[in-house]
């Protein structure tokens, strides 16, 4: 058994690389032509995206009726996908902002990429509220804008809060990401020999000269933005959960939803980041920058949030019983034993049972095992949103209006399309921007920090 001495702080970057080596490794993907594998990957994701675009086209042409939604179940796959993708978008800002505030150095190697994923996930998620409406050409009505009718949006609707919450989160995450990129743009500007790239990097680096003064201002801005982004991490999914919690529907109307949704979002976000990073570190030879230790730490967070989610599942049942509201009790019994029991048990086994394997260190540190578990977690979290949205709607107060929801091919097409969009953006990201923050990694290599040495 390999022993790790937890009393000692290990370097988060292995092998004490030289600073120029770090620059070279991180910038190399941007300077070499995409290889065959890249083209294969992007053709797969573009095909998925195309499937989504066609499915959307069909939906726009014929109407929402192309989906499985029906009369009791007004919300189906699009809302499930929306909540899922917003959830995926949670890990990035949590890693880059909250862990930054907690001075977790290991986050430096993964923050850039995780943040990129956040932005792409929120972009993917943001499509759904707009396309899921019956008349998408009027989706502009959801935004408050002055008009001659003096017609205003309804500020009491959680769906409107969603619009604000998600757009704020996206804006702040994007700015935070960009600010972090500025020193790297400058580094790339200095290193590149390509005239066009030089112009582009010069523009985006905003005249950065690595001066002490620049660094000072940069650190302050970064800190402020981190502080600003931190509450947003919590608020976005809280507000998304209000979509459900503010309603009167049994199974939706629960006070536990905000923390439960945030925990779930972090859970699924970390799982997705872990999944993708496993590929990135291998393909781009960054195994010493995104180390196994980092992955292990992420797995631990997954285990923690997985248990939080499991606790929430149990607590929902307890409160339904304790609260004594018959319709509420039925809603939960129906979840576990009704017509959607299959979805419920997929959710429980993926989200609650599978992360328990992370108690074993061997599992935490074995790439295929942790990869598989994280995939399960993402499947489970998608099903969690499905269970919440669909089972509650399908059997609510009046038994006369109950109905079963079955998704259509178009629903699946749009789901596939959302993955296509996300991964296409991710692939393009790996070829256009440094996937790891050069400046931040340099700051945590051995010898980068002033030490007292052995004194």
């Amino acid at each position: 058994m390999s022993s790790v001495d937890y009393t000692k702080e290990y370097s988060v970057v292995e092998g004490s690389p030289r600073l120029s080596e770090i620059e070279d490794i991180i910038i190399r993907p941007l300077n070499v032509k995409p290889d065959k594998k890249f083209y294969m990957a992007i053709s797969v994701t573009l095909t998925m995206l195309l499937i989504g675009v066609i499915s959307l086209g069909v939906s726009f042409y014929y109407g929402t009726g192309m989906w499985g939604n029906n009369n009791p179940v007004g919300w189906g796959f699009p809302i499930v996908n929306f909540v899922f993708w917003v959830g995926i978008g949670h890990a990035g800002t949590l890693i880059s902002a909250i862990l930054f505030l907690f001075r977790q150095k290991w986050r430096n190697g993964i923050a850039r990429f995780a943040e990129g994923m956040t932005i792409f996930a929120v972009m993917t998620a943001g499509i759904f509220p707009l396309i899921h409406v019956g008349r998408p050409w009027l989706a502009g009505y959801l935004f408050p804008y002055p008009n001659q009718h003096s017609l205003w949006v309804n500020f009491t609707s959680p769906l409107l809060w969603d619009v604000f919450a998600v757009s704020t989160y996206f804006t702040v995450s994007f700015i935070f990401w960009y600010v972090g990129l500025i020193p790297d743009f400058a580094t790339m500007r200095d290193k590149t020999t390509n005239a066009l790239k030089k112009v582009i990097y010069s523009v985006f680096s905003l005249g950065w000269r690595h001066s002490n003064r620049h660094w000072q201002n940069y650190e302050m801005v970064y800190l402020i933005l981190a502080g600003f982004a931190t509450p947003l991490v919590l608020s976005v999914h809280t507000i998304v959960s209000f979509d459900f919690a503010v309603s009167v529907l049994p199974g939706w109307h629960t006070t536990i939803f905000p923390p439960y949704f945030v925990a779930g979002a972090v859970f699924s976000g970390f799982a997705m980041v872990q999944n993708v990073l496993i590929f990135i570190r291998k393909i781009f030879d960054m195994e010493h920058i995104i180390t196994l230790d980092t992955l292990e730490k992420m797995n631990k967070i997954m285990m923690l949030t997985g248990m939080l989610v499991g606790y929430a599942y149990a607590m929902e049942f307890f409160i339904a019983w304790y609260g004594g509201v018959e319709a509420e009790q039925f809603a939960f019994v129906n979840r576990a034993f009704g017509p959607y029991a299959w979805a419920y048990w997929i959710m429980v086994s993926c989200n609650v049972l599978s992360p328990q394997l992370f108690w074993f260190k061997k599992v935490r540190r074995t790439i295929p095992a942790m990869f598989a578990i994280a995939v399960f977690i993402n499947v489970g979290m998608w099903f969690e949103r499905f269970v919440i949205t669909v089972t509650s709607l399908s059997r609510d107060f009046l038994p006369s209006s109950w109905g079963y929801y079955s998704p259509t091919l178009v629903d699946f097409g749009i789901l596939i399309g959302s993955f296509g969009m996300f991964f296409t953006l991710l692939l393009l990201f790996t070829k256009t921007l440094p996937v790891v923050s050069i400046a931040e990694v340099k700051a945590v290599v051995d010898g980068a920090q002033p030490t007292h040495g052995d004194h």
Partner: protein
Amino acid sequence: MSKSRNETKYWKNLKEYYNDPDVFEEKINEFKDGVTDDFETSHLSSISRRKFLTLMAASAAFSATACTDYRDKGEIVPYTRRPEDLVPGIANYYATSLDGYTGNGVLVKTREGRPIKIDGNPEHPINKGKIDAAQQASILNLYDPDRLGEPQQNKKQISWNKAINSISGELKKAAEQNKKIALISNRITSPTTNSLIEKLKEKYSNIEVYSYELFDDTSKRNAWNKSYSGSLIPSVKLNEAEIILSIGNDFLAKDGNVVENIKQFSSRKEFVKEVNSNRLYVVESELSLTGSNADYRFPLKNSDQKKFLLTLLNGLVSKDAGLGSQFPIGFKTLIAKHDFAALSNIDKKNFDQLVNDLLENTGKSILVVDERASEEIQILSHLVNEILNNNDLLCFSKAFVDYNSLSNSDELKNLVNELNSGNISVIINLDSNPVYHLSYIDGFAEAFNKTAAKISLSQFENETTALSNYVIPINNPLESWGDFYVRKNVYTLQQPIIAPLRSTIQKETFLLSLLNEKLSSDSEILPLVKENFKKLVYEKNGAIVSFDNYWNNSLHDGFAVIKIEEEAKADFNYAVLENISFGKSAGGLTLLLKPNHFIGDSRFANNGWLQEIPHPVSKVAWDNYAAVSPNTADKYQLVNNDVVEIKSGAKAVKIPILVQPGTTDDTFVVELGYGRTNSGDVVKDVGFNLNNMISLDSDSPYSISGISVSKTGETYELVSTQEHHAVDDSKLKDIHLSRGIIREGTITEYKKNPDFVHEHDHPIFSITDEHEYKDHKWAMAIDLNKCIGCSYCVASCNVENNIPVVGKDQVGVGREMHWMRIDRYYSGSPDNPEVSTQPMICQHCDNAPCENVCPVNATNHSPDGLNQMAYNRCVGTRYCANNCPYKVRRFNFFDFRDNFADAFYENDSTALVHNPEVTVRSRGVMEKCTFCIQRIMDARSKAIAEGREVAANEIKTACQQSCPADAIVFGDSNNKESEVNVFREHKLGYHVLEEINVKPNVTYIAKLRNTESEDV
């Protein structure tokens, strides 16, 4: 200077300065040669300025219009001379009648000359302002794009003159060749049609008239004749009965004049103003709507009906021997052999109570039996009513007139033989569909097809027109003159509301044309109607006003009452009892054929609205099926949607199964009228045709014993608007009762504890101040005691509010658009469940949960308490529907106007059916019940015009207007005089889901069952 200087001061050039002679000349001749000479238009460019501008303007306009999607919406022509009595925007109402079956009177609402809604005629003495679903929805038939529009000969369009001439020729040819002419029709109740047929018979002595109904009631009429020789069958004063015992008679849904029955029955389910209730016992094989409303229901196989009656007689006579004093000896011994023990599945206690109830309420109870039961059973029922003095409840003045008795099976078989032998060379089908209906007569279709000249009159293509060489398209009832004499004291008139929309004539005009041997016009029918009216009504009544006056008044009213002396009832003929045989029960499987609820004998099959109203009990739409009991389903390992093959003798049919609680074991119940092969777009592939299973020869033509059933392994999807839950699933059992959605009790319980409905209520409070409604506040109340679940309100709402037909596939995925639905719940055992029905519509909650979640404010609250929808603002997030606890919101998943059956709604004629007062909703928009806001606004503008307040009970919603049970009350709950207030404050009144504090505004009056014990 060599040249002289110019004298003038000004010069233009040097030539002028030096006085060049050329300049001088030029000055004199201002217009040089050729300048003016050449000016000829023909020499100019052919494009003149004007022409150029014209072309420019035209091409600009052309390119501008070509780039827009401007669609020519047709000409809009204003009235240059306004028709009398017509104000655009104001509806006119005309009284008429639509059918000869019930002879009910209707009132047709027209807007700018266009009929848009059919309601009952409130003054009509029989139906009193109410009509059934089929008649309400039949407005769609008028505008149906599938209507036949031109006469056809061998599927080719011909002119009307040619059609009449060649058909007259066929008739003459038949007369010359000594061949017979068969005229086949459904029961004729119109004196005018009848007189025309008589005249035609005089002209062509070789005409033979055949008439049939899919559901033949000959045995009922014969039995009455045998019991009380000669007189017409009286109607029953159900409203005066304390005890009603129905043996297989579905009088609340299918048998007799249903509208009249419901009205009378429900008038005795009164608990709000006083406690006044009848008690209904139902003995039946299938779970019918009447059985659903029974206080006591005995499931009994159809074949045991006679046994039950004889046992009942035994029970009555053994309690009171005097009742049987006049029975023949043989009959006495016969009934003595029927003891209760032979009746399986029937609770002894309840049976004894039935006997006691009948004995205690002599003269105030009534027994009604299956309309299609054998003569023996009918006679026994007459006997029970006779010995209990229940004949006081029979109404002879409203007796059912029997104008033309139906042809019996021998006559119909003879028709087939004659057709086959060629004795009949011409067959005229007078607006019936014998090829479809008479498939139980062996070889009818083939024989029909063999006939030389086949003439069919019909509004729609059907199985018979498909085989006919002449197809004569006829008018819709709304385009026709006519009269119906169905009930002894009422003569109903029919007048055209609109000119024929297509090139059609009414069927009487066709008969008249044959008589005149040239094409007549519809207007020639009016004098005939008047003539008959004069003879049968005016002269009989001895009215003192002039005929014209009398006629005009009657036409305005839509009917005339005929004065008749109350006819003394004849004595019961006890001798008939001698032939009654022992009541044996038939073993094995039984196929029970029943009428359907909405599409008649299939004549309304092409009406999407009617196909889409779910079956009132099973909630299945768009199909028929074989209903079986859960036990039988288990025995044969059948589940819903399994297709079985039912065999009876050589006949075999396939039909899907529906497990229907309450059906007796070993019985397969099928409703007829489905499975059309030739008809319009709507009815394609709808249901299964079992007409050929009818066995008219047997004692019970519609209850076929000794069938065999086998599972085919195929499945066929039935769609329903309510999930089929297993009644015995413990998680779901009685969930509607435990949630307080349905609150029920018994009269005994209510008398003991009038507050029992509210026993489990919790105090509810709000943390915010309640909104105050200062002026009007609209509210509705629905009396569940009166509501029998007939679904006529659904039909009315559909027509009033432009509810689209979505089709079977969309109902299958739960996207039906009905604003009003009738929820049906079962409780108790699956063998004999208690049924509760509950009309469910938007509850217009004060704290409407749909309103606060709409991100765009598309649904909001009006100051008079209405939950409103602004369709234009709606983006379709469906959040409101999710948050509606009653799930009454309906979303337009497609543009349902073009989604159903190849844009059925978008053709020119169907669009005319829309109510102009109600917006036609587009795709992606949420909609729901508005409390008929258009009617509220109408009443409001009337009140404003008259300078008064809207009266408390002035507004009637469409559902309320059509409810034959008067179960729905609507009004201003802020007005203390309003009726709805009485309901809201009544102890039996409750709100569904009031515990979630949405403050709904529809009050339900809890149902009380009139049972002896306290438990339901």
